[in-house]
């Protein structure tokens, strides 16, 4: 618990940055746009329609499509910017719609009175229409506030830290304390911000200048703090901080902590972890120099990034991947950690024995009666297409689920086959068997430390520190470390800490 709470200031500040700035820009756009719509009726459909369409895009997808969209424009595509833009778009509709509704709801007799006493159109808007519509507009801002605080937790997969880091990593590592801390913090934040806007509305409508001043000062201080922290963060990035990326599963959390510890210890550079990045987001982030280091798997680069279908030998894949990364993207493969984390099909030992299944080829005859479960990416990945086509598999149904739930699902017979990861400690823990890929449909997945172009250019010492990790983790070691997190509830940082300690002890002993 205290370990989780120690992360709170950082995540909360990042969450505030995203939420407050998105709301500020969202309001600054929506209220004038709402006014325009009420003045020019023909704008009504296009503007409100567009905002509605944006609102119907699932929030996770909206944030995720910002990444390629911004990359196409050649600006920062990972981290703050895509999350900020996505959230801003998301905050627009409630404010816009309430502005239009609020202005339309102003008594026409009062609008005529405003004209009759000699107000210009702008004065009418400022002195009569907006003040009268204010309660409705503020209600829209409150809706947006609560919505934005919630959706901002989805900034984590596009590389912007937020309270979502608690939730994503907590769900992945079965750390319910982390999930709870993240949810409670987001809920409290939403209530506090909502309360501030509500307080402002009450103060204005009851004409309590004192209250309004207090609320506005509080909001101002929050924005001040946010702005200062944002500027500091930008400054810190330039100050040579090393950022290590991690995708959204346990092994990645552990490895990123190990690499961060190794870099900090060896070079003294400040190293921080940007965790829970989407799979291709991590690669894009490295290429765009938003992160400096992360661990990826040779087969993933081979199949997903290089779009290759043939599966040559392990060494050939490694060689081609290394050359491709260096030549195409200026990324250095610092080295292989010493284990493979392959996609593998796994099933209950008992069922495999009953059916007499040992290899994937043996499944072909039974597949029609079996259900397969896979992680979010699996059924869309080229590896699955290769497996399916090579062995002629056609399952009764394919179920996509969170990787942390897959093992439980197969053990409790809700699915029969899963797309396991070969390093997952739960294969042994749940008494599952990994099926042989006898026709070599699945490429090799050596865990590779990838160093971004900036490190290669500017920090040879860091690259050297990373090279010291070559061959230090074998598959058994990785499995045990994964199990320690997934089964025993140890934190990834703690597991990484004890690994580095052991490593140091072993080196001293040599």
């Amino acid at each position, binding site marked *: 618990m205290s370990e989780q709470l120690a992360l709170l200031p950082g995540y909360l500040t990042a969450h505030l940055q995203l939420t407050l700035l998105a709301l500020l820009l969202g309001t600054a756009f929506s209220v004038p746009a709402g006014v325009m719509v009420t003045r020019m009726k023909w704008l009504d459909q296009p503007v409100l329609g567009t905002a509605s369409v944006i609102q119907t895009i699932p929030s996770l997808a909206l944030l995720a499509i910002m990444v390629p969209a911004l990359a196409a424009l050649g600006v920062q595509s990972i981290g703050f910017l895509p999350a900020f833009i996505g959230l801003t778009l998301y905050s627009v509709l409630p404010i816009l719609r309430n502005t239009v509704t609020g202005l339309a709801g102003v008594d026409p*007799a*009062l609008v*005529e009175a405003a004209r*009759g006493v*000699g*107000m*210009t159109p702008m004065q009418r808007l400022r002195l009569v229409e907006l003040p*009268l519509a204010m309660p409705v507009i503020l209600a829209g801002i409150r809706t947006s506030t609560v919505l934005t605080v919630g959706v901002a937790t989805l900034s984590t997969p596009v590389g912007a830290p937020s309270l979502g880091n608690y939730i994503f990593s907590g769900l992945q590592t079965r750390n319910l304390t982390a999930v709870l801390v993240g949810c409670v913090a987001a809920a409290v934040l939403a209530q506090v911000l909502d309360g501030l806007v509500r307080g402002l509305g009450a103060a204005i409508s009851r004409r309590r200048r004192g209250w309004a001043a207090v609320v506005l000062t509080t909001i101002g201080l929050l924005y001040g703090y946010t702005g200062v922290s944002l500027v500091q963060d930008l400054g810190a990035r330039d100050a040579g901080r090393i950022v290590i990326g991690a995708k959204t599963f346990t092994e990645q959390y552990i490895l990123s902590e190990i690499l961060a510890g190794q870099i900090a210890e060896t070079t003294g550079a400040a190293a921080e972890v940007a965790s829970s990045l989407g799979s291709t987001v991590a690669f894009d982030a490295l290429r765009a120099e938003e992160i400096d280091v992360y661990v990826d798997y040779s087969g993933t680069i081979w199949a997903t990034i290089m779009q290759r279908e043939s599966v040559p030998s392990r060494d050939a894949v490694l060689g081609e991947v290394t050359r491709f990364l260096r030549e195409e993207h200026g990324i250095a493969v610092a080295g292989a950690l010493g284990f493979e984390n392959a996609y593998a099909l796994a099933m209950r030992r008992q069922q495999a024995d009953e059916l007499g299944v040992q290899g994937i080829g043996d499944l072909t005859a039974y597949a029609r009666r079996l259900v397969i479960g896979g992680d979010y990416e699996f059924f869309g990945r080229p590896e699955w297409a290769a497996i399916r086509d090579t062995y002629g598999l056609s399952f009764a149904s394919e179920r996509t689920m969170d990787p942390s739930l897959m093992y439980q699902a197969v053990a409790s017979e809700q699915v029969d086959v899963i797309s396991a990861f070969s390093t997952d400690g739960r294969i042994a823990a749940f008494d599952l068997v990994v099926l042989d890929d006898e026709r070599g449909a699945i490429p090799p997945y050596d865990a590779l430390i990838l160093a971004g172009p900036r490190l290669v250019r500017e920090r040879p010492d860091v690259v050297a520190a990373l090279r010291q990790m070559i061959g230090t983790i074998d598959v058994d070691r990785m499995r045990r470390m994964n199990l320690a997190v997934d089964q025993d509830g140890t934190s990834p940082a703690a597991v990484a800490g004890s690994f580095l300690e052991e490593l140091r002890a072993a080196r001293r002993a040599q």
Partner: protein
Amino acid sequence: MIGPGVRARGIRVSSIGASAPRYRRRFATLRIGCHGRATLIETVGLTKRYGEVAAVDDLSLRVDEGELLVLLGGSGSGKTTTLKMVNRLIEPSAGRIAIDGQDTATIEAHDLRRRIGYVFQRIGLFPHMTIAENVAVTVTLLGWDPARVRRRVDELLELVELDPAIMRDRTPSELSGGQQQRVGVARALAASPRVMLLDEPFGALDPLTRDRLQQSFLRIRRQLHLTAIFVTHDMVEALLIGDRIAVLHEGRLVQIGTPRELLRSPADDYVRQLMDTPTRQARLVEALLEERPA
């Protein structure tokens, strides 16, 4: 002469027929004083069409300085449309309006409206402003300094018989309908306009309140020597407060004249029927009084 608001109301109701000429005499003196003065408001061929329908059709009127002209007619007669064209809340389809010789189309609409007091049928006080802010709205737009605005507000509230100390900081919702329309009149008077337009200002009030406000208004307009156009569908009201009455019917001017002229020689059956109503009602009331045992 009996001051407004002092007379016993029962007597007044029972003697409408008799009291009307008495009012006339009072205004007649005033009118004689005004006689020969310049025309302040003039409409020439004023027309407003909505599609095929003419809400106001070729209306030419003159209002002398210091005169109160009543526009009288039923709903759809075009009286409110005419009034709103004077301060350009509605733009005419044809014809022109001059105030003090100046064509209103040549003045910025909001500037024109700041120079004309307007009292609305539905009162139209701004609910988010205090009474003082409501009264001050036009002079604030004109850029008066705050101290002068404050003095003016107090002066106006006293003029409409509201206690500034009590009313200043209240909001419209805390006031009765009658009090609200007093504020409405004060707001219209704030910038000392020469011309006042009143759109059935007392129509939504109960009879006693309406009577009190009519008396207050008559006093104020004499005191300030206002030129006004007053829209009403209430014959009694028209007879009691108008120097002249213009009867409109389906957008056209049927007859214009002093109340006496209209009562004595109505131009057609429509006007006759209109004028008969209050006199007949007054007789009925009087008859009731006489039949009652002492």
